[in-house]
């Protein structure tokens, strides 16, 4: 600790350079944490879902619908305990700059299917009673400053026209992967407005036992195999994972960009450290003349690199963690549960140590090995 004033004094020699170096480390680690969080959030969404819930979609593709009439037939399949359905609504609110998801659902069965959505009982009752009622995620309420009982009008993008809902409840998810940036409303309301086409986007089924999932899925798909609306049934986790795989290349891209950014900043930091050490050749020689050991000088230079890297890490990693947590950031609802994980912080800390070693090692070894006489002769 007695060398700390010397270390701090050296760092204060070129304040602007030190600040910029710390800022570059902080920025690199902030970007790393952000990009890594995109990857972990996508992966987390893929892992979300109960193994006891199956999802049946149109075999042709998720954008194609299934008849509502399937509900009773699905309910009758052995092992299926309950059935619900939902549609992607695709609405736009206001200028549309702030995107959020809107789903038309069968309200009673949907809320029974998802106990992860916590709603006060009175609000739940009010929502179920009113055909134009809507449930809104807590964060979305805060974003727009909406109040219970308020009418909200969305412009339909898939189903044209103005769609007005009355906010009757606010839900809070117990699993962050569900997200708080969504509106759900009565499927019946949509059916009525659209002239009762009798279509559902996908079905969700609760089954009795996890181990029965493959057999039940096969039974369902076989049942509709020769119909106009063949199904593709799988576990909810597999369904979510299929969305995640669409992000697959994005994840790879994010990871690659993150690595490249950290590497680029590493070069900048190492260059700054080496420049700083080179400028102090005479001083290192003087310290050796005074009696500073090679190991002590090595440690002092490494400590300087450490102070820069750790300060940058605290700002970058800590900043990312605090920012995303405090703002409940979710990429406009696309990535619910967006939060820097402990694992990302551990990886970021490891990068910080690597950064310190890589940027400090060369100048530290150089300082330790500096031949005193020739260094003094150069400046004499």
């Amino acid at each position, binding site marked *: 600790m007695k060398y700390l*004033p*010397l270390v701090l004094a*050296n760092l204060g020699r070129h304040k602007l350079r030190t600040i910029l170096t710390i800022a570059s480390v902080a920025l690199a680690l902030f970007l790393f944490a952000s990009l890594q969080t995109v990857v972990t959030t996508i992966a987390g969404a893929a892992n979300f879902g109960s193994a006891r819930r199956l999802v049946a979609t149109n075999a042709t593709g998720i954008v194609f619908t299934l008849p509502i009439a399937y509900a009773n037939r699905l309910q009758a399949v052995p092992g299926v305990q309950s059935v619900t359905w939902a549609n992607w609504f695709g609405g736009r609110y206001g200028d549309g700059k702030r995107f959020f998801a809107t789903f038309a659902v069968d309200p009673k069965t949907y809320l029974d299917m998802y106990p992860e959505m916590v709603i006060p009982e009175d609000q739940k009752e009010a929502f179920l009673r009113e055909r134009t009622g809507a449930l809104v995620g807590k964060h979305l309420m805060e974003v727009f400053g909406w109040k219970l009982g308020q009418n909200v009008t969305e412009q339909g993008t898939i189903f044209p026209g103005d769609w007005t809902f009355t906010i009757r409840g606010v839900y809070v998810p117990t699993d962050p992967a569900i997200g708080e940036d969504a509106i759900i409303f009565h499927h019946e309301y949509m059916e009525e407005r659209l002239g009762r086409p009798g279509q559902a986007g996908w079905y969700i089924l609760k089954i009795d036992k996890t181990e029965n999932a493959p057999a039940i899925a096969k039974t369902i798909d076989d049942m509709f195999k020769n119909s106009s609306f063949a199904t593709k049934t799988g576990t909810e986790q597999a369904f979510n994972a299929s969305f995640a795989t669409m992000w697959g290349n994005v994840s790879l891209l994010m990871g690659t960009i993150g690595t490249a950014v950290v590497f680029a900043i590493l070069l900048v930091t190492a260059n700054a450290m080496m420049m700083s050490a080179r400028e102090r050749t005479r*001083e290192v020689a003087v*310290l050796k003349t*005074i*009696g500073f050991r090679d190991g002590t000088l090595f440690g002092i230079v490494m400590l300087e690199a450490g102070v820069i890297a750790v300060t940058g890490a605290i700002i970058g990693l800590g900043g990312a963690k605090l920012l995303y947590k405090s703002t409940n950031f979710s990429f406009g609802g696309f990535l619910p549960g967006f939060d820097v994980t402990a694992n990302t912080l551990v990886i970021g800390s490891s990068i910080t140590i690597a950064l310190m070693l890589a940027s400090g090692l060369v100048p530290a070894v150089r300082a330790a090995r500096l031949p005193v*006489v020739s260094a003094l002769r150069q400046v004499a």
Partner: protein
Amino acid sequence: MALVEIRDVHKSFQRDTQRIDVFNGITLDVEEGSFLALMGPSGSGKSTLLNLIAGLDKPTSGVVKVAGADVSEMSPGELAPWRARHVGFVFQQFNLLPVLTAYQNVELPLLLTRLSKKERDERVRLALGVVGLDDRLDHYPRQLSGGQEQRVSIARAIVADPTVILLDEPTGQLDAKSSQEVLALLRRLNSEFRKTIVIVTHDAHAAERATTVLHLEKGSLIRGSAMPSLRATDAGVAAGMSR
């Protein structure tokens, strides 16, 4: 026994394919409490001799002993703590760390000791008091005159109470008045505090302050009495001839 013993020291450098012999068997004893001035033309090896005594450089052959320790045989790992304990070095260009205050610069050698913060504080204040700069503790080198910087440098050299103080052209960068102040200080350190001092200088006035003056020419030592203007008492030099 002499404090500094240099025995049959050879030193040569290799410059490209050319071998340059600086010393060819130089021998010198410096007694404890003496004030030796080494003079000579540029390239005569004055600074090299100082570096050998400080353990900053190694002789090609021969022995350099300081306070009984064979400096020429020590490893770099042994030399660093030895230097911290036994050598105070003053440079021509002061070489204070610009980012540290006068106080912090003088404290540097004490960081290598086991002294407590309080003990270090007492020593630093004492050393700066001896050089007459106890009112400049918090000044950075850029806020000091050249003479003051050199006095801080001397305070740094004496703060750990070294066995020998080595000075390489300490007045080379100073005006006449500052030079006189620094030389008076060195004389006082020698006479009042009995510090052993070896100074390399071109300055005849600086050499006048020494108790012994030796000239280095073509790798050999010549007694200072060769220069009649200098007061060369030889009191501290037991022997000093090569070849």
